[in-house]
């Protein structure tokens, strides 16, 4: 994906990883937060999963306007843990394009879910993605919505699988729609496990 990399690097020069990184950046003083920029959304999804599993508090948000190309996310993290995060990412061959201090509010992803009861089935919507599940078996019977090209591919992989057996969409998803589908999937699984 062409990410306007030249533009990005002109805006923010990323220092090489060093133990000193945690002490830099006076501009961090306001929030203590930074964000990591990657080549594409698929890398963001992988990195988020990796850092979360390692116990780091990270969030996915939208980048500032000058970095947007169409389907973008960044990972917000505590700058104190930048060296730790970079080491973890390097082990998995994930190389952020830049680490940028958060100076302005970033776009928040959708956090609300909408659930519809269809009797034997229920549907969960997150942003523009919907997933429909048979209550009795937990089988995913339909995936709808979305506009990024991995949605039809993920939908085909999920349809007919049980919620407790299906691979989470974030593992192979590469777009914001896939991430929204992942959130709907996780919420549907939570609802189903609690008994609907």
């Amino acid at each position, binding site marked *: 994906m062409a990410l306007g990399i030249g533009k990005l690097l002109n805006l923010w020069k990323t220092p090489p990883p060093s133990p000193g990184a945690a002490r830099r950046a006076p501009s961090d003083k306001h929030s203590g937060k930074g964000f990591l920029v990657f080549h594409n959304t698929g890398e963001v999804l992988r990195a988020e999963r990796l850092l979360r599993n390692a116990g780091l508090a990270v969030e996915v948000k*939208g980048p500032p306007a000058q970095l947007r190309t169409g389907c973008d996310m960044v990972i917000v993290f505590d700058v104190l843990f930048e060296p730790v995060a970079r080491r973890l990412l390097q082990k998995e061959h994930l190389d952020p394009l830049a680490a940028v201090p958060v100076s302005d509010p970033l776009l928040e*992803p959708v956090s609300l879910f909408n659930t519809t009861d269809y009797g034997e089935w229920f549907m969960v919507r997150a942003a523009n993605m919907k997933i429909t599940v048979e209550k009795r078996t937990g089988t995913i019977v339909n995936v709808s919505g979305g506009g990024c090209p991995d949605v039809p591919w993920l939908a085909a992989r999920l349809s007919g699988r049980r919620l407790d057996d299906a691979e989470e969409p974030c593992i192979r998803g590469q777009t914001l729609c896939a991430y929204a589908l992942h959130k709907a999937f996780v919420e549907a699984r939570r609802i189903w496990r609690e008994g609907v």
Partner: protein
Amino acid sequence: MSWIICGSVPEEGFPLSLGTWRMEGEQLRADGTMLLPHGGTLSDLPVQRGTPALIAATLQVCQSLNLPRPLALLTGDTGNGAGSLALYAFLSGWLATTSQAIAGMTFHYLFPNVDGHNRILLSVRAYAEKHTAPTLVADAGFMYAAKMSGYADEYDLFTPDAGELAFLADENAPHPFYTRGFLLDSGIAPKELAQRAHAHGNCARTLLIKGAVDNVAEDGMLVASIDSPNVPYMEPIGGTGDLVTGTVTGLLMAGLPMHQACIAAAKTNRLAGALASPTPATQVSELIPFLPEALLQALADFSV
């Protein structure tokens, strides 16, 4: 005059191709001469959801109304965007050199990339100066890119669902994933969202808004609502929106005015749902056989 449908196929190795397709059972099969700019071999396409479902619906309209089939410009893309970027590059070059008369273009499941979008829009403008301006329809990922580019108002038709309408109405959101909650889930009426999207230049001149009630908006004003037959189980079925966009594409190919084409397409989809008696587990491929009968009913109701 031809119509071009541009979209993706969820297969990594599917080659960039330009040509016509026909229905063969529940699959699409390449028909006639295919342009394969980068080589490769085409396989049959299952009609499940996405652009193949859109094409299948358009083909049903073409067959019912005895129209020539549309051209399809397809690329394989499973989400990394490489296939879509190849399509953007090819199309912008092809438009600069083709002598083909193009009545319209429908853009669908493509990786939203503003640079790619803008290259195509510039090529369309240049084409329109030499020939005639094609009707521009956008849905799904390409609609997202069109909105983010700031040039959404150069399009003739967008076909969002209710959630995507909230995204169009949110002047700050670059993707539906970032739509602010006060627009997405607060029950704001489609009328207000359409006005807001139009006021910020973030939508096409006409919106066909797909939902429990389908609405048509022109220049930000609701001009029609279609609410019957009411088949609530249509919403969970993946691909029903693709059928609506495919149907309206076919009706525009037939020369229906935009307003009539939108109403008839929404009505057709609802009637197909009523004829199929679906459940939330029904697949979109099960609805497609009902489209021809639904279309005839819709057009009869509409006195077209």
